[in-house]
């Protein structure tokens, strides 16, 4: 699982098929759990699929191999997307997905390092970003040639800690760190710009010394090409990819609907959503 480019149309189609299956499992597991965050999981799905299926060097059979690329899901509430991908790739038994959030189950409501393939315990917003900065620094101390990826929510960027971490990544010249902001423009209380405006995130990260890219976060070709470009720039700067996405992507009645930020579909909605995703 390393990057192969230029990427073929058939590979893109394959990724789209995988993403649809992942979305199906996301909605199903949240539906069965009767709890969870479908909106932000569905908006982040394509980025996570691209990373694990096309971009990252990792091995489900040897999850601790030293030179692996590391992914930190800082917007931890989107973990159903990560769990579905990890299960599909064989990090743990797929049956675990249907016990999400239940007492005694492997899969916690937010990512925990007790879960195979999960690199950091996250979910309290802002914290995963700092952890990723620490991991990137640690990898550089070990003289590894790997990559560290971190996925933030756009609402998450309201946390002060995000900017402390952004400052540090630039200061330590962590060009082995590639971040994504899942820019779906919605947070639990409404539109990000109404709750606490984020303004121009690109300019903000640029001002903090990052190289910044803006893409369509549902376009596999853009995701993969942009990561490849970011990787080719060994210029001492961390990279941030602002990925414009749609909250609830893939389920018609969840798309752009803030009510599905942190609410599971009811039985009827679950049935409809699964039908759309089959």
């Amino acid at each position: 699982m390393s990057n192969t480019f230029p990427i073929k149309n058939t590979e893109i189609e394959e990724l789209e098929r995988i993403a649809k299956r992942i979305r199906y499992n996301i909605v199903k597991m949240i539906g069965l759990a009767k709890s969870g965050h479908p909106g932000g999981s569905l908006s982040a799905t394509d980025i996570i699929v691209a990373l694990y299926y096309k971009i990252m060097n990792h091995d489900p059979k040897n999850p601790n191999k030293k030179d692996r690329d590391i992914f930190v899901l800082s917007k931890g509430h989107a973990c159903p997307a990560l769990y579905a991908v990890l299960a599909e790739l064989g990090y743990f038994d797929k049956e675990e997905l249907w016990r999400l959030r239940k007492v005694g189950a492997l899969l916690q409501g937010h990512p925990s390092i007790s879960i195979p393939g999960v690199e950091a315990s996250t979910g309290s917003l802002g914290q995963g970003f700092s952890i990723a900065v620490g991991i990137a620094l640690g990898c550089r101390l070990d003289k590894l040639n790997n990559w560290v990826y971190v996925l933030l929510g756009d609402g998450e960027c309201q946390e002060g800690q995000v900017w402390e971490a952004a400052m540090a990544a630039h200061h330590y010249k962590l060009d082995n760190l590639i971040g994504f902001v899942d820019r779906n423009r919605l947070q639990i209380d409404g539109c990000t710009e109404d709750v606490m405006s984020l303004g121009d995130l690109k300019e903000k990260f640029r001002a903090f010394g990052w190289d910044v890219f803006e893409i369509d976060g549902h376009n596999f070709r853009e995701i993969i090409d942009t990561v490849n470009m970011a990787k080719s720039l060994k210029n001492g700067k961390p990279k941030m990819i602002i990925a414009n996405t749609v909250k609830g992507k893939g389920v018609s009645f969840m798309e752009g609907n803030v009510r599905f930020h942190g609410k599971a579909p009811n039985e009827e909605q679950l049935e409809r959503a699964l039908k759309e995703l089959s």
Partner: protein
Amino acid sequence: MRYKLGEKKGMRVAYGETLVKLGKELPNLVVLDADLSGSTKTSMFAKAFPDRFFNVGIAEQNMMGMAAGLAITGKIVFASSFAMFATGRAWEQIRNSIAYPNLDVKIVATHSGITVGEDGATHQMTEDIAIMRCIPNMRVISPTDYYETKSIIEWCAKNEGPVYVRMPRRDTETVFSSEEDAKFQFGKGRILEDGSDLTIVATGEMVPEAIKALELLKEEGIEAQLIAMATIKPIDEDIIVNSTNDLIVSIEDHNIVGGLGSAIGEVIAEHGLNKRLLRMGIRDVFGISGSATDLLRYYGLDGESIYRRILEEIKNK
């Protein structure tokens, strides 16, 4: 008296010196600080190992997150600041990023307690034991003196998992005569003196003050058992259960709510011990500016005041 008070030496100096020693032994040891390295003495490590020292600036929350990330890559991480900012500002980062995943991060804070002095209430951390003690996986240690600090820091580096160590700004009298004499035993209180009239349990910089009080009590014919309790979590239950005295006096430079006194109270209550507990410390108030010496007297925590308070307690019994 088994132990004599020696000259005043800084626990934070012992911390800096031990980090340098450990840095030579352990190539995967790294140190973080948040713009207070000159005060916390991590600057000594920074000078010796500039490639393994990271000053993250005035950003404690990010420091704790980065500490977690470095630990994930297999480093032994020491993260330092003043007790107020290390534990207060970054509490939730410590809880969620470090303690929950049980990572190998040692939070070593200086400038604990009221004896920070002139800087006043905003810098006098008298709640750190309470807020660290209630986090699962977290161990809490408050060294007795310069020599024990060395032994404790070494123990921290060589035992995996999160620890919180607090130490004062000021230099305090040594209680032990050497590092060997002070050899730290995790989770064990240390009986410094036997006595059959009462038991004094003191922690950290309060141990020398307790020794001063104990000597004054002796002149009155009152024999106190003295326990130095460096490990506050897990608390040494046995040493409290096995104490035969009816009166226990806890002494800490910390709020009496949630600290050493509370930990001892929990042991007494859970074991149904027929003992009275007098908690000496900061009595649920914010501090004020002043010199460390004047403040100890003001809050009744210098040797003389402790002696008088205990005398009163025993006479009114």
